[in-house]
């Protein structure tokens, strides 16, 4: 009897490992190794854990923004900076109107969602004319939009002294503090700590809510239609679905999520970063979801959660370890090498076709 149970437990573990995929097991193994190293190097493990949790909630929604475009067959949304800048516009607007606390936060979200959605829709119109080239076009479109918005930030007619350059003149600062506005408003909501590990309850709950809504949406008739379009556009047409409309819907949702994502990110970070800051954010998000096991046209919520966790955990733990082992002066260089290394690995790991059953 006991033996029997043992086998089933073993089989269950095997099944779990199989559905997780070998690459993720390897990364988990590497991560465990890093933690052991961190222990030996006497790093503050509790703060490492808190850091990982915070960064999971902070980046999660930007990664979630990849799901609709991937499912609908446009590939990962390399044009994410478009949605991000929309979120930044909404966030700066909240400060300009001198809103504080929850009012500011909710206002920023309320503006960000329609603005990001609208921009995503327009972006979808462009991509519908460039089917098959979405990733390359998206990358350069993202770069262009960041540069274009840099001009906007420099010329925006904002008046709030918190945002314009301290010596006066026009244009916004590169980094705007959110202190006194909605700095860490979600992180601190119902936050508590166990054994030194701080749990950012509100942040994680919000991320979970977004994931749940997306999960439900992908199971509606519309969500299934999007999946069908992404799986096989000609099949979709043959059952009377409008491929372009579904693709537009995908990029609209992705744009809105990008805008929401940056507001969540910035409240946790405590600052709004303008100008060139959004330039490479798409790559982090794309790297995360791919490392989580998504393929270019097939992304699930669990890929988002696992991927964001792995990506951020690797970043958070490998940096201090590498700093101690190599040289403290090289921290910025190492950060770039590690983060781009993870992205490169993820892109090289992209799996074609769906998961085998």
């Amino acid at each position, binding site marked *: 009897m006991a033996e029997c149970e043992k086998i089933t437990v073993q089989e269950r573990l095997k099944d779990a490992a199989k559905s997780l995929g070998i690459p993720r097991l390897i990364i988990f193994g590497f991560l465990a190794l890093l933690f052991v190293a961190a222990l030996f190097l006497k790093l503050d493990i509790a703060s490492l854990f808190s850091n990982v949790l915070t960064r999971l909630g902070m980046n999660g929604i930007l990664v979630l923004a990849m799901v609709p475009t991937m499912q609908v067959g446009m590939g990962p949304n390399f044009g994410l900076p478009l949605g991000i800048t929309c979120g930044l516009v909404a966030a700066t607007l909240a400060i300009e109107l001198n809103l504080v606390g929850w009012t500011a936060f909710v206002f920023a979200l309320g503006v960000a969602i329609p603005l990001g959605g609208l921009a995503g829709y327009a972006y979808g119109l462009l991509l519908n004319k460039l089917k098959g080239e979405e990733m390359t076009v998206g990358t350069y479109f993202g770069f262009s939009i960041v540069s274009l918005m840099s001009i906007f930030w420099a010329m925006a007619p904002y008046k709030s002294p918190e945002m314009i350059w301290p010596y006066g003149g026009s244009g916004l600062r590169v980094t705007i503090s959110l202190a006194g506005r909605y700095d860490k408003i979600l992180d601190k909501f119902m936050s508590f700590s166990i054994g030194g590990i701080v749990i950012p309850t509100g942040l994680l709950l919000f991320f979970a809510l977004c994931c749940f809504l997306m999960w439900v949406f992908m199971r509606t008739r519309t969500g299934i239609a999007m999946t069908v379009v992404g799986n096989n556009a000609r099949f979709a047409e043959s*059952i*009377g679905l409008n491929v372009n409309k579904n693709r537009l819907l995908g990029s609209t949702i992705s744009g809105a999520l990008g805008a929401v994502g940056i507001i969540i990110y910035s409240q946790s970070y405590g600052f709004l970063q303008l100008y060139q800051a959004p330039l490479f954010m798409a790559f982090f998000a794309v790297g995360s979801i791919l490392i989580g096991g998504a393929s270019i046209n097939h992304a699930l919520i669990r890929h988002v959660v696992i991927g964001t966790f792995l990506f951020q955990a690797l970043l958070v733990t490998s940096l201090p370890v590498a700093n101690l082992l190599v040289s403290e002066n090289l921290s910025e260089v190492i950060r770039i090498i590690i983060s781009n290394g993870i992205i490169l690995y993820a892109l090289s790991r992209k799996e074609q076709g*769906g998961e085998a059953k």
Partner: protein
Amino acid sequence: MSQCILELRNIVKEYFGNRVLKGVSLRLNEGEIHALIGENGAGKSTLMNILFGMPVIHNTGGYEGEIFFQGNHVEIKTPHDAMESGIGMVHQEFMLLPGFTITENIKLNRETTRANVASQVFGPSMRSLDMPAMEADARAALDRLGLSLDETLKVAGLPVGYMQFVEIARELDKKTTKILVLDEPTAVLTESEADTLLTTMERLAKSGIAILFITHRLGEVMRVADNITVLRDGEWVASMPKSEASIEKLAELMVGRSLENVAHHRDLSGQGVDTFVEIRDLRVEMPGEEVRGIDLDIRKGEILGIGGLAGQGKIGIANGVMGHYASSGTVRKEGKEIPLNNTPVALAAGMAFVSEDRRGVGLLLDQSIELNIAVPAMQSQRQFLTGGSLGLTDNKSMRAHALDMIQKLDIRCTGPEQLTRRLSGGNQQKVCIAKALTLHPNLLFVSEPTRGIDIGAKKIVLDLLVKLNREWGVTVVVTSSELAELRSICDRIAIIYEGKVEGILAPDASDRDFGVLLAGGLKAAEKEAS
């Protein structure tokens, strides 16, 4: 009797255990035009690929049998070997560089060159082109074809007929060319262009070149061929001089196969059966299967077959009616006009379509069987949904329906969750049919239902179509390249030629009648022959 230049003896070719050539022999004499005829899949192209040493042959295990060239046993392993021994091939798809001039195309990789300073230092690859000499050669080759075309023109923008001639000129310019293989050369030509080509072929043959002429246009065969060989299902059927042949005889030889069963056949015409669907002047822009003005009536409750050779437009009909390709004309179903180019409306009108492109259009290969079956009905009829206006998928009813279909259609799988990619061709086809049935159609279009399916599964799929028709009362329109299959299940068979209905026959009509319609009709054939 002129000398035998090429002899194929007992050629056998297998692709993955599937015998496509079963001991074909052929003799080609100097200065002779030898026509090789047969339906699609008769083995004509495979035979030519062997003769020309195409890599596809040797990558799949080579061939058995012997080839003799001017009495010597030869092994043709690469297209280069074939060229060396003097076999020139004019392909169905033009192998020309559009941005190059006619001369450059003719002389490509065989350029006449002159030494210069650079070539003295760096070797022969740096020699410069002798354009005047090349142009003179090209001129000579074109003259031989009786073509007054300027050899300095670019190929891009030439009429297709001329491209064909440039290809032939290229082969002629190779001084060693003794055999010219023309693979359906008139398929893309207009009538007058085809006429010029045939005249040219006769002239070339007189100058001593042997021509192997692959076609299915019997009129052309009767006009120019000296000898004729007929292939059917990879087997040599007959060889005869033209004097012994007639269009009817060739047609019969081309088609003739033993019919398996025609038991299903019913004659519905006498029973006052209503016209169910009326198709008038349907034109469909489907590349390679263009429909050019079809008038066709579908009777209620029948199984209508649509046959014809590849590229004649039979595949385009269902694709056009269902809105998969841009089309024009009128389609009336039970008196009500169905707008074209609108798939949702076509589906709502009770029509369903099982596409000929099973893996490309018919299936979501990376999704489960149950989702594949349910999704068309879910999207167009809101079946399998719960949660009111939110429209959440109802996994329970999807599962139940999939299990029901798996049982009814006998889909062999590990369960409704299996990915369709992992099913065999026959079972994939059953999923496609289940998917169409879930829409509860009263008219079902099925294209190439047995393509790529093994023999056992073929029968099951065909029986299934008959069962749908008889027991579920679905009117079925089957489009197929396999005439035998249509003749075994259909009540009537329409044959499509050049995008139009050439004629409608009962399945038990004679082989001769079918053959003649397939090859473009008796009248047209006679006109060409005269």
